């Protein structure tokens, strides 16, 4: 018999919302919401992320899985719930890039994994710096599809340093997957190949924040 994790992964990949909700509700009787998220949803999304990296899972499945999990998590752990994971202020944005699907996938994956974060969507440099300062952001996730947008992160980093406001930066998206040195070149602190990589990256970075 398939384990609940196997059932959940299979249901997510086939976009079977009914089974997703059934697996999560069957697990709900004996476990706390955050435990359920960490024992079922996070590993299922991680497996799906690895599948995408290896080429056995498609981006549409990654996106729809994140969306289904986000819906399920919002039902069992509302956004305002105090038991959501306690983390330094975090945000996600696309800097001067008009392609937002990658951002949306990472945002859904993190929310489905119990994290709270702000979503600035598409922004320009000035707006983003203002947001970061106003909200006291300590970890910033940036998604890019276009190479020029990825390269702009270097200028953002310099600008933030000049203004004395230096969040840790996690980057992801196609240019970083095609050039594995690019994240260092733009001055990022971490790079994620997949949306679920972002979970380990921000957990690691949160540990080194003063």
């Amino acid at each position: 018999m398939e384990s609940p994790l196997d059932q959940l992964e299979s249901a997510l990949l086939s976009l079977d919302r009914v089974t997703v909700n059934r697996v999560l509700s069957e697990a709900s009787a004996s476990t706390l919401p955050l435990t359920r998220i960490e024992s079922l949803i996070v590993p299922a999304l991680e497996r799906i992320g690895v599948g995408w990296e290896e080429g056995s899972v498609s981006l549409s499945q990654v996106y729809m899985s994140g969306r289904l999990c986000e819906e399920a998590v919002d039902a069992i752990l509302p956004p305002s719930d105090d038991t959501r994971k306690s983390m330094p202020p975090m945000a996600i944005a696309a800097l001067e890039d008009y392609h937002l699907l990658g951002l949306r996938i990472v945002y859904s994956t993190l929310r489905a994994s119990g994290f709270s974060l702000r979503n600035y969507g598409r922004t320009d440099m000035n707006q983003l710096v203002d947001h970061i300062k106003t909200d006291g952001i300590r970890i910033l996730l940036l998604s890019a599809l276009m190479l020029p947008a990825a390269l702009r992160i270097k200028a953002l980093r310099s600008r933030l340093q000049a203004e004395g406001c230096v969040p840790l930066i996690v980057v992801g998206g196609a240019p970083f997957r095609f050039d594995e040195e690019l994240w260092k070149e733009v001055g990022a602190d971490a790079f994620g190949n997949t949306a679920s990589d972002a979970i380990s990256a921000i957990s690691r970075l949160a540990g080194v924040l003063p």
Partner: protein
Amino acid sequence: MKTESMTSSERLSTAMSHREPDRVPFLLPTVMQGAREFGLSIQDYFSRPDLVAEGQWRLRARYGHDALLGFMYGAVEAEAWGGEVIYREDGPPNAGQPPLSGSADIARLEPPRVRDTPCLQKVLRLIRLLKDRAGNEVPVFGSVISPFSLPVMQLGFENYLLLLHEQPERFEQLMRLNEAFCVEWANAQLEAGAGAIAYADPVSSPTIIPRALYLKTGFLIARRTLSKIKGAVATSFASGRCLAILDDVAQTGTVGIGASFLEDLAAVKAAARGRLTVMGNLNAIEMRHWTPAEAEIRVKEAIAKAGPGGGFVLTDNHGEIPWQVPDSVLLTIADAVRRWGRYPLDWI
């Protein structure tokens, strides 16, 4: 060095017939770089098809590649449907605000007519200018976005995925409109002088959707569309993988397939051999900081994997060389093809 014995047209035609020409044909899709020839911004450059034609001509003279690009920017099709195009100084124009705010707009959508759409007429003028100058010596490639992939720019990617998964009737309605437009647009380019059409279909790649969904959607759409295009079509997945659907793609009526850097070029060539010409798969993002030695190694690797027997065009894996790639790297690639791509490939 031995003189090349074929024209670019002969070389491509021979390779695409799965035979070995005098050397491996290659194409460096330097779509924007001509702007530098005139000291213009990318936006100003693309406003002048006469300058783009001249730019293409100069770039071919410099690199010696085997085709001219009757193409400016992918977002021109979103522009034709009423979408916003956003220019930048250091990269291709992007599709901005989509013309459709949601799937409900599909019901009242009408496809643009090519003859009445200035941005498309600009591209047709470019093709005519290139064809007039190149004659039969160098082919001019046109380009269309597939009906199945265009909605990423018409609706935004997220809205499109939701339409695809949750609203089958509206999806079909949009596909019928897009198919009619795509056929008209491709045939207009062929009439203007394009020798072949690149069919950009990234959403069909297994990188984006699973094969099972492709067989019910992008595959059927490609078969219907390509059967109405009156010329040769080669399919590109814009860096997306293709191996899992290669046998299916071969049944759509296409003559070529773009290979991703994410897949082993030898495996793609083995699967395509004798059926589809493989185009690829240099990593143009990484190319930005290649040393001359690295550039030569990458060219040799690609030729060794896919060159034998013909049926191979060396190019990048996306269809566009980034603005940031140095000219010196492109010149090194071109030299390496001339050095290592001469048939017979007896150095392998």
